[in-house]
């Protein structure tokens, strides 16, 4: 067996089934596509993929998205050029239903490129209202524009700015998605190099905390904030959320991040001797072996005042 990165061994105590975890990490990741319902029906997408000799399997928890075998190349197809579907990992489909954007609202996607989640938001809003998709990286912002154009999105504005310093006069927003840069450990099945990154580096965590704090500041009272990473590292997940919860006190609370038909673990309420707010149990940890996916973390927050 290939050696697992040493960085992962520290999760032994918090994974329910270590053998299954290790075994899942060694398998290649299935490919996933979701239907752009502005342009096509799930049945059309399924038929188009089948006509290309692929074998789409609807996801257990989302019938408009399909799983394909790991080596599939759904990007090199006519229906893809026509914007009938988008190719995106299954775990990346979790945050937007939890954000639950509504038609006509003003939504901010603070770290948006290359735009897979922006697109899900825009489609859920029926191509109306306002999605502001921001990223700090100009090259990645270009990829975001490519996503908007291919999927035919008419309700997205793109901006190039440091999200941690996003101008306050741009707000308030009804909902904010903060899909932060992270150590990407959960991408291990796609890219073994990711585990070389130092998970939980203080500078990175400081950046994530600043981004989440800004997101809360930009959200209207009563509005919702979703924080997401693709890493296992508690320093970048529960600890960041805990820090921001403490800073906001009663003005901010966690809502349950649960999706029916998708298996997840509750968030940690303790790590390395640090006790966290008990409500962190409401966050969602996704281990690869639970649903045969990548790794992920989501927290759903509601601003009270």
């Amino acid at each position, binding site marked *: 067996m290939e050696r697992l990165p040493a960085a992962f061994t520290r999760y032994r105590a918090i994974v329910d089934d270590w053998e299954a975890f290790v075994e899942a990490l060694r398998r290649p990741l299935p490919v996933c596509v979701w239907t752009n319902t502005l342009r096509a029906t799930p049945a059309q997408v399924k038929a188009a993929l089948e006509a290309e000799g692929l074998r789409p399997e609807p996801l257990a928890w989302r019938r408009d998205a399909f799983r394909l075998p790991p080596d599939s190349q759904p990007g*090199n197809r*006519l229906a893809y*050029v*026509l*914007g009938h579907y988008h190719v995106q990992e299954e775990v990346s489909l979790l945050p937007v239903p939890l954000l639950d954007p509504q038609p*006509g609202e*003003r939504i901010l996607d603070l770290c948006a490129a290359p735009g897979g989640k922006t697109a899900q938001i825009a489609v859920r809003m029926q*191509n*109306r*209202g*306002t999605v*502001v998709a*921001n990223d700090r990286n100009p090259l990645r*912002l270009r990829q975001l*524009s*490519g996503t*908007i*154009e*291919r999927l*035919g*999105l*008419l*309700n*997205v*504005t*793109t*901006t*190039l*700015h440091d999200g941690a310093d*996003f*101008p306050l*006069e*741009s707000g308030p927003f009804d909902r904010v998605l903060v899909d932060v840069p992270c150590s990407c450990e959960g991408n291990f099945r796609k890219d073994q190099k990711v585990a070389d990154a130092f998970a939980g580096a203080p500078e990175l965590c400081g950046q994530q905390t600043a981004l989440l704090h800004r997101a809360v500041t930009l959200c209207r009272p009563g509005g919702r904030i979703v924080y997401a990473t693709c890493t296992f590292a508690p320093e970048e997940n529960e600890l960041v959320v805990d820090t921001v919860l403490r800073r906001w006190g009663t003005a901010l609370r966690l809502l349950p991040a649960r999706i029916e038909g998708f298996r997840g673990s509750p968030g940690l309420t303790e790590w390395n001797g640090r006790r966290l707010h008990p409500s962190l149990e409401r966050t969602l940890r996704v281990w690869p072996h639970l649903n045969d996916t990548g790794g992920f973390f989501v927290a759903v927050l509601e601003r009270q005042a």
Partner: protein
Amino acid sequence: MNATPELQQAVKIVDPTPYFRYLEERFGIPPATFDGYVLVQPGRKKVYIVTADHRPPARPRPRTIGLPFLRIYLKFPKLSTAAAQQFGHAATRNVIDTDPAQAEAFLTRRDFHARPTQLTRCTGRGYVLVRYQGHTLGVGFLVPEDAGGRVESMLPKSWARDPDSFRLSVE
């Protein structure tokens, strides 16, 4: 529908009349196709189309707003590929229905030859919409020849498929 105050604050609103008239003349697209949308110009060369209820921030300054619609300051404004795919279904003139080999050429950015029978709805040299199985793929440039015409693929590089691996024709 009028632009929201936020949209007016954030970006230059464009009078759509001449552009809609051009699209109606060349492609037969009725201006009502664009009801509920507003044309804006965030930069120099491109006009964008966005939902009329859109409320973007003025700061940070928007890079793009909605979907690229037309490249302007050309001899004839050019409809973007994104707009062609989005609104091309409404066109009735200067539309070419392609066979698999022609569509494959178009999507891999190669010119293709159109037969005279395929040009019955074309009015002459200039932009055409290229369709395949009822879907608008994008914009071509038609150069009439003795028998039929040559259609240049105006598909941007970023949209193009790899000619070595992309296939529409069934072997």
